[in-house]
């Protein structure tokens, strides 16, 4: 009790030393807590995304020239529309997916511009037993079109205007916002309408199977490919890189960055605390000498310094935990691209902080404390 009182009185007397040491602990703990709070959630979220989204697949006609495909973004060849139904019927037991979308697209010249004309099936084919959720942002009705951003800019049409598409009138259902992709030069229409415009009745050139999953374990893409080989020998499967992949990649990069940063923060704070403890010892040399003269043993003198370090560790851990958690809650969703809902305080980290931080500060102050008790009183009490 008396040692504690001495420590507290010293702390309030030399508040700068205390506040600066505290700052180091708060920084270290906050960085760790913020990272683990966000990153654990981020990992959980990543697995959730992987589980839920699975693979986005594009099925295109087998004879497609892939060089041209990647250049233009669509296949020159077509396949019968009812392949979608075949796929839906035959694959249900082996492959799960959320959405199955039949599309027909081609590049055409419209009003002097090169545009992508895309017909999509009015409805997604949603397999039985799957909760319906809309992947495509709109359902296209016959006789209506959606115009990409650039096309709207060039033509100046508005919602509800009538436009002419290769001799047929269509109503503009919506002018789409800017996407920064080739969707900006796209005209979406009902699959049937586009088929008739392009004289390709009953034909499509791509099936998109979104959020595919294999029921069996193993490499899902390989299994999907071999399954499709049997169901749709006329098709070729390619993987559509999902947005979630990019996000996951970004998260992994961030985690790698933090993984390198964390030890540096730790070492930096250890040096910081050690240096401050050392300065504190230097400043209190005569005090150590006096305590010796008054009959205080080395253990009790060391306890003054280590006790102070432990107090700094405990207070720093508590503040650091709440700061780090608050940081993770407010910035984690942006930094780690996870939903805010998934970030919750991890209270076990508080327990850990309260255990680890005082140990850490005590170790950082250990050498200065040893210096303090082993210093020759003839030096510490030297009258200058």
């Amino acid at each position, binding site marked *: 009790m008396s040692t504690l009182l001495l420590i507290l009185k010293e702390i309030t007397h030399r508040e700068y030393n205390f506040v600066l040491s505290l700052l180091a602990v708060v920084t270290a703990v906050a960085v760790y807590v913020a990272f683990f709070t966000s990153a654990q959630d981020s990992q959980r979220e990543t697995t959730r995304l992987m589980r839920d989204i699975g693979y986005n697949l594009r099925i295109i006609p087998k004879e497609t020239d892939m060089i041209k495909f990647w250049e233009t973004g669509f296949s020159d060849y077509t396949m019968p529309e009812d392949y979608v139904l075949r796929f839906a019927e035959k694959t249900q037991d082996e492959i799960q997916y959320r959405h199955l979308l039949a599309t027909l697209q081609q590049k055409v010249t419209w009003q002097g511009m090169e545009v992508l004309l895309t017909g999509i099936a009015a409805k997604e084919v949603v397999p039985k037993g799957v909760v319906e959720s809309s992947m495509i942002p709109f359902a296209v009705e016959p006789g209506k079109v959606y115009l990409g951003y650039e096309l709207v800019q060039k033509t100046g049409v508005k919602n509800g205007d009538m436009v002419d598409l290769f001799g047929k009138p269509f109503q503009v259902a919506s002018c789409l916002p800017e996407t920064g992709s080739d969707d900006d030069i796209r005209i979406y229409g009902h699959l049937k309408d586009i088929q008739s415009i392009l004289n390709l009745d009953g034909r499509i050139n791509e099936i998109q199977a979104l959020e595919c999953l294999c029921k069996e374990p193993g490499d899902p893409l390989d299994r999907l490919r071999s399954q499709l080989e049997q169901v749709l020998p006329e098709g070729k499967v390619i993987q559509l890189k999902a947005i979630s992949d990019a996000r996951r990649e970004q998260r992994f990069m961030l985690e790698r960055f933090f993984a390198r940063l964390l030890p540096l923060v730790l070492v930096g704070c250890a040096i910081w605390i050690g240096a401050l403890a050392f300065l504190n010892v230097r400043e209190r040399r005569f005090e150590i000498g006096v305590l010796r003269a008054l009959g205080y043993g080395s253990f009790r003198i060391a306890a003054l310094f280590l006790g102070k370090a432990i107090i700094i560790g405990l207070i720093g851990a508590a503040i650091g935990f709440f700061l780090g958690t608050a940081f993770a809650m407010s910035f984690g969703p942006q930094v780690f691209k996870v939903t805010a809902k998934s970030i919750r305080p991890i209270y076990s980290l508080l327990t850990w902080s309260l255990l680890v931080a005082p140990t850490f500060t005590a170790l950082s102050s250990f050498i200065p404390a040893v210096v303090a008790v082993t210093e020759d009183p*003839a030096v510490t009490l030297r009258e200058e």
Partner: protein
Amino acid sequence: MVLLENVSKTFRVGRNEVRAIHNINLHVRQGEFLVVRGPSGSGKSTLLLTIGGMMRPTTGRVTVNNQEISAMNELERAQFRAKNIGFVFQMFHLIPYLNVLENVLLASGFERNAESSERARELLKNLGLSHREFHKPAELSAGEKQRTAIARALMNRPSILLADEPTGNLDPENAEEVIRHLHEFQREGGTVIVVTHGHSADQYANQIVFLRGGEIVENPSST
């Protein structure tokens, strides 16, 4: 009582050896007043710290109150000091973050029981510091600081008081008062060993020793 037999203390600084005190033989009986004099660097502080058990002599034997402290380990010497010895320094060495009363209580292990509080207050009263109990050292005059340090040294009712130039930073009046308090302690049966350059303590001295180059010289006037 204090008995030094062939006591030497040599410091090692890098490769050099500094002989701080050499072959000291000294006997101070209980209740005596000893004045130690000598030029700077002659080993006065080293002598005092050795008697107080703050450092062990390199050779020789130090016996205080019939206990050979030169043979004790660190912890034993600390405990011995707490019970038997009071220190007073030139620079006062008060703890800046404790008030006057707390500085005095520090000597009793900072235990704040009624008995030690009463003892501390009584000492402060005798030293004319009752009105300063709750002041921090920074708010005190030099004389008040040194009197606080004396109260702290007397707190545990030591039998020996070791004072290293206690008047070195005081004006003559305050110096006089400090010496008077040392004498007071002696009159009550305590042993006083004081290092001082002034002569105001001479009137109370049973013994005056003169140090030069770490050795006691019998006739200080002869070089």
